[in-house]
């Protein structure tokens, strides 16, 4: 073997490299690149035929020529791979373009309904009492006058008994009224069990009030009753303070102010510092700085005696509050009749499932 052959083979490889690179370079898509790959690296490629020339090369040159052949092959393969990656990348990019969406278009939400604001308010209040160890009871709206008044120590001649103030029901022999408060449930609950009693009673009540922004002839009340050994007025104050702060704001002042109810003694009203003006006086609190939120007191022994509890052993506290008023204050509803109008533009504001 002569040096000529050596040079000739070297040139063949060099030619295969150049041609190969140019063929790969001119491939304009993945398909053409496939064909180009066969053409420059396949069995019929210039590289392949140059390799067959190696067999005639002298022994001592074969090794370096072989290395040259491998180098050319590697270079060509790399060129194909690089080209392929380029094509794949641009194809993906084109796909992303094709698949582009406007993420700002509105979503297709399932429609969620809403729980009535009064349901939400009643649940919120009831749940606080559940946390304090109370159960929940409900009772009749059409009530015996005996339970609505007599058992609750209402004087026989009290104006609340008049048909101007209280709805009476035409039924049977006994005197029935639409309960004017949830308080008769104090009697029903105590009649049905022995102490300890810890119960809250949400329910609808009725009074012959001319309806306006703050009065309804049918409205909601939540009654509460705790009767146990050693219940004190301090317990009443602590429990209701806690509840009022949970509802209106933990940093607000709460005060108990003496009042009168026939079925509690001593009786009180609970005022919460006005959440709007923090006590300095504004329209919401009628310049008083305080907002009255509920009535309460120590259960009158008359009631305990009525149900046959031992008044030496047991004492209790009771309270009643109006969810309409509390919801109106909490949500800034100027007219509580809104709660019974069921205007969806109103109800939707309480949307979501709470």
């Amino acid at each position: 073997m002569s040096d000529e052959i050596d040079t000739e083979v070297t040139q063949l490889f060099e030619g295969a490299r150049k041609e190969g690179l140019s063929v790969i370079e001119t491939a304009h898509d993945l398909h053409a690149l496939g064909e180009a790959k066969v053409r420059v690296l396949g069995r019929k490629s210039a590289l392949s035929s140059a390799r067959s020339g190696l067999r005639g090369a002298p022994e001592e040159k074969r090794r370096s020529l072989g290395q040259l052949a491998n180098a050319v092959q590697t270079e060509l393969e790399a060129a194909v791979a690089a080209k392929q990656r380029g094509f794949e990348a641009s194809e993906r990019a084109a796909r992303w373009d094709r698949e582009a969406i406007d993420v700002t278009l509105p979503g297709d939400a399932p429609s969620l309904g809403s729980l009535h604001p009064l349901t939400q308010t009643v649940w919120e209040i009831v749940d606080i009492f559940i946390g304090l160890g109370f159960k929940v009871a409900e009772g009749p709206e059409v009530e015996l006058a005996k339970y609505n008044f007599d058992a609750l120590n209402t004087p026989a001649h009290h104006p609340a008994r008049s048909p101007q103030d209280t709805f009476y029901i035409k039924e049977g022999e006994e005197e029935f009224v639409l309960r004017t408060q949830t308080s008769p449930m104090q009697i029903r609950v105590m009649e049905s069990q022995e102490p300890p009693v810890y119960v809250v009673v949400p329910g609808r009540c009725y009074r012959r009030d001319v309806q306006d922004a703050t009065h309804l002839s049918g409205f909601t009340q939540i009654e509460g009753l705790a009767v146990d050994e050693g219940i004190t007025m301090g317990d009443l104050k602590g429990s209701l303070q806690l509840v009022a702060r949970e509802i209106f704001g933990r940093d607000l002042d709460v005060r108990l102010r003496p009042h009168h109810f026939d079925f509690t003694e001593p009786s009180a009203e609970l005022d919460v510092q006005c959440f709007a003006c923090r006590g300095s006086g504004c329209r919401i609190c009628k310049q008083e700085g305080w907002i009255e939120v509920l009535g309460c007191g120590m259960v009158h022994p008359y009631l305990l005696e009525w149900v046959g509890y031992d008044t030496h052993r047991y004492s209790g506290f009771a309270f009643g509050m109006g969810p309409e008023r509390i919801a109106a204050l909490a949500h800034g509803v100027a007219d509580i009749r809104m709660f019974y109008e069921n205007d969806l533009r109103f109800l939707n504001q309480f949307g979501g499932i709470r």
Partner: protein
Amino acid sequence: MRVSFNWLRELVPVEETPSKVAELLTLSGTKVEAIHRPGESINGVIVAEVIDIGEHPNADNLSLVEVRINDADTRRVVCGARNFAVGDHVALAPVGSTLPEMAVSERRIRGAISQGMLCSGAELGVSKDHSGILVLPPDSAEGEDVVTALGLDDTILEFEITFNRPDCLGMIGIAREVAALTGTELEMPDAAPATPSDGASPVDVAILDPSGCPRYVARYIEGLRTGPSPGWMATRLAAAGFRPISNVVDTTNYILLETGHPIHAFDADKVTDHQIVVRRAEGGECITTLDGIERTLDAADLMIADPSRALAIAGVMGGADSEVTEGTADVILESAYFDPASVGASSRRHLLRTEASARFERGADFDAAPYAAARATKLIVQLAGGRPSGDMTDAYPVPLERRSISLAPRKTEALLGMRIAAARQVSYLESLGFRVTIGDETLAAEAPSFRPDIQRDVDLIEEVARLAGFDGLPSTLPRGVAGGLDSRQLAERRLRRTLAAAGMHEAWTTSWASERDLDALALPTDHPARSVVEVANPMSEDERHLRTTLLPGLLRSAAHNLAHRVEGVAMFEIARIYRPTGGLPQEPLLLSAVFCGLHRPQRWHGPGEHWSFWAAKGVLEAVLTAMGVGETEWSKVTGMPWHPTRAANITAAGVTLGTMGELHPDVCERFKVEQGAVVAELALGPLVDAQPGRVKVRDLPRFPAAYMDLSVVVEEAVPAQTVETIIRHAGAPELVEVRMFDLYRGEQVPGDHKSLAYGLELRVPDGTLTDTQANQVRDRVIRALHDQAGAELRS
């Protein structure tokens, strides 16, 4: 109750400011609702004397009035009122002065210059009277500031007085509270007679009903002259909301305000034989009361009468024909104590609540009758002249006794949860007028005659507590029990939440109903909802009943929303209805729902959909499943208010749940939901009782299922649920799931027929179902459908 602070200060030497006193009273249970300062916004308005009333040159209805404000100075003002005369004292608001609602400037009125204005009571804010200008009492001084002349340099405290405290419906009662709260002494107004008695009383009192009238004090005053009250009295009455009338009548009102004890004056000439008879009314007896209304009396009404006729409804209102008038010279003053229940009953019976009845029905002070009479006598003599004739008559057959109550001071501490030394408790009670005797473990407190509310020891505890102040109470928590909701209450909450999650809005409507609602639903007369609980005294025609269905309320809410251009309504309500029983009504809970308008609005990628029976049914089915109600059966129902062919009764395991369907179009029209509505009304009981219980998991299948579709043609009349039930029964046990996916009517099936297509899922637990097994199931199903429903396989 409106209290003049200036007046209050005459009764108790209080140093504190009105605001401070208001706070003390509020925090001890006598709540101040508002504080008024009437003179605050009046500036520069003065007393002037009218010296000339001339014609306005250009206006018949106006006059030019010249007033004098001092010897040297007069003003000419244009005035539209004519209720005054030359010599009268009036309130002049000169140019530059201010009134509550305006600042006064010089004005030209119809060509005449007005140097200010003459004020009406309304303009000064002292009354609501716009009709004329306010004529001031003659004892006011020219040039004096109207604020002082009318006593407007005062603070008015407006109280909310609770039913148990009639004593606080008088100045003395409020003053007593203030004295107790500030550690000062109450100064009772002087009631001592100016001249000693000159013999027996000319008034004869016969109490025929001592239980209705335990005590009757009468006093004869002769030779008086009625006339206007002095300014100070008129001012105080006006501030408290009374219209001044004449010195005698005003004095009775003044004494009512001062003492809290109602008194009445009769024209003595109109009282036959000067004889007062207290008795119950006679059958058919009538009286025309002071308000001019003729009232037929009830045999239970307690009357003040003379031997010939009724003079007054005791404790409520006097009669018109014995009224004190301008010509009255002699009066008989009444100061009595009437039974609270009797006065309350008469007041309610005649729908007549007066200042007097409000006090008597709460319980007046039985010891105050002579004092009030003496005090009134003193004032009348002072203001109207005349002199008392003879002694006071005090008919008091069975004297009432003050109640003595024993209290263990320890119990006060135990009930309040607060330490208050026994001595302190005693001093609180004494400051309120109790006479206290101290024993070993207990004390005995004798309640004052003006405190009818004090009945037992807890009432004393309240007195102690409110004077000690509730601020001092500790804040503690009771021990409680294992609180929480029971399973039904939990289920009801779950139901409400599920309905809301399913896209429905919860509504609350009122319990009121009327015949009209039931007529609008066109319910037949024998429909159970026609049997109603009636309100004896409804406030309106539409509120005569308690509801027996929730639908009218929900439909009205739906209509309200549609009228406000809300496009779709899906609402539910869970509430009670009321069923008469002869005793206490039943009050079962219902779940009702209304669906109308758009179910889904049109979206950018899809059209809008209206609520259909099936869309609504789907919501209901999902909710029933969530509540653990098992398989439901839907069978057609007819009768109002339902669409004749588009409504169903729903049952589950033989228990009726309720009805769902389209509303009859006539009903929709009456409720103004013309586009139609799907509604449902279900009993709540079976839903909250269903209680799904604890889930027991089935193993997941280990072998693949076989799936096949089946289309069958049946007559229109065959319900889909029947077809599905046949498939389920015939396909068992390999058939584990059936889902209907197509309904076809048209050319490819005979008329009056429909094609139903079902996807079937078959599996066996222990292996893969072979084709042969699957085909056997298929054949069984096809045969059963053919035999039981006349179904043919659709080719």
